[in-house]
């Protein structure tokens, strides 16, 4: 049987998703050299220009301009930087908090498990969007605050899903055998339990990235996301909303960007789940 990582690289879903994510990631990393204009450079003479191929378009603004005459393409590319930063750091942060608690909870069980389980229950009873809005109001706006808010809201997702997997693995005889051979709890966790749950963890991170992109867009849309001078897709949608009849393009492009990014992450998560999860891989899906 080939290693699951190689197997996953043969899956069409994973390949398509990885290709998309690499493109978006490339835009995010090299935004300053790809973007034709400064994203905040205003050009009040040519506002609400349509894309270059439409009637009245301008070659220098390939996807047109917004109400303040800023280049839409440049703003999209810089917006990718915001979105990817949030996706990576917020999901890693949520993963770290959620998975540590999940490992402790699932492996040791008993009172610790009960306390963590109830904390997750209480946490999850708040509607996530409202909770993040409240957090943003309290924390103030900014990229780091957005990441912090998402981490604080979404660690429960990791904790709950991963805990049940840890519980199953911990119940396997080989974990008991490791203890009987003199492994310390730390050794047992790191060498026996964690490797068995890594496929699930990788899948969860990829799905969480998609969620983080959406949450960041929502927060930016209501003006509680990143600072106004930093381009973000949610912000672009909010701006374009007022001129949707004059210039529907402005609304369309950031929506499309969000759609592609979220789809890519979801496809990746789904593809990884199918190939890394032994049970699904064996049943021939």
């Amino acid at each position, binding site marked *: 049987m080939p290693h699951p990582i190689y197997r996953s690289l043969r899956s069409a879903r994973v390949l398509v998703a990885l290709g998309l994510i690499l493109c978006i990631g490339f835009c995010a990393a090299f935004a300053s050299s790809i973007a034709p204009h400064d994203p905040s450079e205003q050009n009040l003479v040519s506002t609400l220009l349509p894309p270059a191929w439409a009637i009245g378009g301008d070659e220098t603004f390939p996807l047109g301009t917004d109400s303040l005459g800023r280049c839409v393409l440049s703003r999209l590319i810089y917006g990718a930087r915001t979105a990817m930063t949030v996706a990576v750091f917020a999901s890693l942060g949520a993963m770290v908090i959620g998975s540590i608690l999940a490992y402790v909870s699932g492996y040791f069980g008993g009172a610790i498990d009960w306390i963590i389980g109830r904390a997750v229950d209480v946490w999850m009873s708040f509607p996530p969007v409202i909770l993040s809005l409240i957090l943003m109001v309290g924390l103030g706006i900014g990229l780091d605050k957005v990441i912090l808010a998402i981490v604080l809201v979404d660690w429960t997702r990791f904790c709950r899903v991963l805990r049940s997997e840890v519980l199953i693995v911990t119940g396997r*005889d080989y974990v008991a055998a490791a203890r009987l*051979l003199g492994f310390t709890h730390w050794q047992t966790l790191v060498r026996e339990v964690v490797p068995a749950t890594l496929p699930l963890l990788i899948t969860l991170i990829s799905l969480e990235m998609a969620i983080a992109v959406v949450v960041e867009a929502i927060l930016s849309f209501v003006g509680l996301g990143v600072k106004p001078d930093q381009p973000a897709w949610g912000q672009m949608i909010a701006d374009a909303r007022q001129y949707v009849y004059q210039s529907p393009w402005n609304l369309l492009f950031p929506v499309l960007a969000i759609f592609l990014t979220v789809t890519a992450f979801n496809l990746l998560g789904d593809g990884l789940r199918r190939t890394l999860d032994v049970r699904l891989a064996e049943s021939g899906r």
Partner: protein
Amino acid sequence: MFDSQKVGAKAVFVLQARNLTVSARVDDAIVPVIRALSFELPRGKILGLVGESGAGKSMVGRSIAQLLPSGFHILGGELAFEGQSLVHMAAARRRALLGRAIAFIPQAPLTALNPVMTIGRQFDEHLARLDQRGRAHRRERAIAMLAAAKLPNASELLDRYPHQLSGGMCQRVLIAMAFVSNPKLVIADEPTTALDVTMHPPIIHLIADMQRQHGTAVIFITHDLRLAAQLCDEVVVMYAGRAVERGPARSVFSTPAHPYTRCLQLANPSMSAERRTLYVVPDQMPSLRQLRGISGCHFAPRCPLVAEDCCQAEPPNVAITADHVVACIRAEDTRSITTELGSTVATTFSKRTLLQVERLGKRYAIGRGLLGRTYEIAAVKDVSFSIAENEFVALVGESGSGKSTLAKLLIGLEKPSTGQIMLNGQDLTEPSTRARRLRTETMQMIFQDSQSALNPRRRVASIITQVMEAGNRRASWDERTARTNVLLAEVGLSADFAMRLPAQLSGGQRQRINIARALCNIPKILIADEIVSGLDVSIQAQLLNLLMRLRAELGFAMLFISHDLSVVRHLCSRVLVMYRGEIVEQGPIDTVFGAPQHPHTRALLSSIPPGGALGSLAIGGE
């Protein structure tokens, strides 16, 4: 009642198979799973299909219902029910037969019943399908049938759900449902395998009784040659898809003509005959993939009598007596396969006590509800015993008697509520790192489920020398490889197993790796929890012989937990009988099994088919 009776009057046989061939698609090639199987089942007789897992015996039952797994097809031959071909029958007509004239008793009774419907509704549904009019009439019929299946309070039972009944009761319900339509043919596929040992004899008796009362023909599929000999009229022994021997049950069992049947018999420890070393058939039954590479007789690679001719062509069927047929060209030499008489139980262990358990108890708190009321149940009560150096002690009892909890207490996976465990005079129950280290160094456990006991991500070498990376030990990879090679040789595996993953091993090989891991640190006591249950007889014999050889070479004591009394008798010198958390009887094996004092011990002993006497007759006849 059924029109099949009219047709049946003409046909002599209820079921007749002629050159039945079932094939499977493996790696884009067609491999026969059943090859040219022929048998006749006269009305009112019991035919036993005997073989180890992978022999193709369950495929016969599935062929009758045409419920073959995907990729499997009936390639040729004929399977006729009362003279009508089941292979070429229209699906609708076959469906009309199934459940009416042909009934099934499944292997796993709990999964065969619908968990969200009461027994009564499921029975009623079945009777309604049989065109029994009137709800009240159907209810009466169900009650009568359940009572006939010796279920107490049949009318109350109808309102119960399957999970409220024990496995044995569920199987009785299913037997009642199978026989309610007065079928011509019942197919029982390992009907006792999923049940507790003490439930085996009553279920077997019930099937036999029902079969006699209704005059039904039964196909009894089992892996247990002794059980088949006790119950069946005729036996077909299957190996790798071929019927290697067919004949009257008694004569197949007393004078097996095929080397495989003989080896199976000698690999099975006896309950009453003199102890003798078990015959070990090397290797295991070829898988479907391996089958393609074998020419001639499929048993030849493992056969002790193999000659050059065996690999040339498939052996023809040879009739020994009028009704005893064997597929072997050297059948006349089969009787020369034998094993040595001799005590298999070491009697030379020193009397020095190694492990002393005193008044050990474990209580679990259950039912912690909102009202805060907790109930305690005692899983282990006041257990006291001792194990001497090099002594193999057996722990027997039915499931739920607390055997596994006791094992967990000894090994330290659970903390005892009361009592003491003394190892070489040191208390293991005190929670100190010293006690834990002492336990790790002297005691190891071999787990029942070899699949769950091996980390699927580690390679064999890493698994069996895992102890060398525990705690502060950081052995180099060279040291570990060296130790791996020694241990693999000890458990009888070649060195190239070192880099395999558990998924690439068979059940028997996994259990050997499991044993090798426990032996890595050279422990003084092994705790073995049902380590041979669920394995085929020939694999079981290999492992039992392995354990005895290892004891002679390395010297260790063992607590051997098992429900199989003949295995226990073969391997151990002393026995502890556990019942509802207590040890109700203990002493030397021959004393306890010879003159059991406690009623539960007697119940356990009666659950073994009395095949031992027959077995000894055969051996004595040489």
